[in-house]
């Protein structure tokens, strides 16, 4: 059965209906369109990509205009925290994928453990980010700081503004992802999400992987510019 046929099958029924089946047992028909749900999620991710896309465009524009400033400014970033955060996010994507495989196999508790691990990795990412930013701010490297205004005339300031803006917006997405996954965990324990209906978890997974995806590009553009 093609997915389109499947989608149209449900169009006649927009709300839960119920009646009696052949053997007189009560049945409930619930409207459900997993395909449409997923497609909708992708449309939302589209807007996210454009949101970050605009910032990537700004990055390339300013980088072409002040290549030296970007090189100098990037030398102030440490590769190691960036690399560690890359590994953390990649691993959190793995545990997210594992959570979905677990629920597909009906392993509810295992699924919640993997979701919990995903949130924990997100939290670890935030802690690293906190130390990284605090260190930068301690070194007087933030938008409008005395050091940048007085000693860095070649576009370093733009680099740092983009750095805070893009990694900051990304970090905001990590936080939102963690909150969403926490709600998913509650739904798994109340069996609102189960072996036979886990589209919400899949959509939360798509969001989480997108956050990982954006970081895959942020990492080389900011940290590997030496």
């Amino acid at each position, binding site marked *: *059965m*093609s*997915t*389109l046929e*499947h989608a149209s*099958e449900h169009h006649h029924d927009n709300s839960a209906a119920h009646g009696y*089946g052949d053997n007189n047992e009560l*049945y*409930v*028909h*619930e409207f*459900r369109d*997993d395909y449409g749900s*997923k*497609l909708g999620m*992708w*449309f939302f*991710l*589209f807007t996210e*990509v*454009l949101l970050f*896309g605009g910032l*990537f*465009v700004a990055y*390339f*524009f300013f980088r*072409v*205009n002040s290549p030296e400033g970007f090189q100098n400014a990037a030398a102030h970033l440490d*590769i190691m925290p960036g*690399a560690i955060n*890359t*590994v953390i996010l*990649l*691993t959190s*994507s*793995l545990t*997210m*994928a*594992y959570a*979905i*495989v677990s629920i*597909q*196999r009906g392993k509810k508790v295992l699924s919640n453990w993997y979701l919990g691990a995903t949130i924990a990795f997100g939290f670890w990412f935030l802690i690293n980010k906190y130390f990284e930013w605090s260190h930068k701010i301690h070194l007087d490297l933030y938008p409008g700081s005395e050091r940048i205004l007085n000693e860095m005339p070649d576009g370093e300031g733009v680099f740092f503004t983009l750095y805070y803006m893009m990694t900051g917006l990304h970090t905001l997405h990590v936080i939102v992802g963690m909150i969403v996954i926490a709600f998913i965990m509650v739904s798994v324990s109340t069996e609102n999400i189960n072996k*036979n*209906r886990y589209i919400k978890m*899949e959509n939360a*997974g*798509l969001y989480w*992987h*997108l956050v*990982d*995806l954006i970081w*895959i*590009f942020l*990492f*080389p*553009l900011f940290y*590997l*510019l*030496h």
Partner: protein
Amino acid sequence: MSTNNTEHIEEHEPHNGFGNYFVIWLTLIALTALTVGVAGFDLGMYTIVVALLIASVKAMMVINVFMHVKYDDALMKAVIAACASVLIIILIFLGTDVLG
């Protein structure tokens, strides 16, 4: 009607298991190590090309396997391709404007 839902789910048998995802994760970690390693060499203007190339390979793996796009149907793929195309078109126009 109520059995239809379960039938539908069964059509979508999981394509990936724990092992498959683990291999992809291992490759992604290896590529991260590679991109950090390569950054140590001064490749001049090719530095960013190499870095973005590796990032793109990683991105394709995340999109295709973790995000399941490889197993999605033509409509879903078209939506995602359209999304990527818009971004690439914007970048190309910007490129001709800034570099040209």
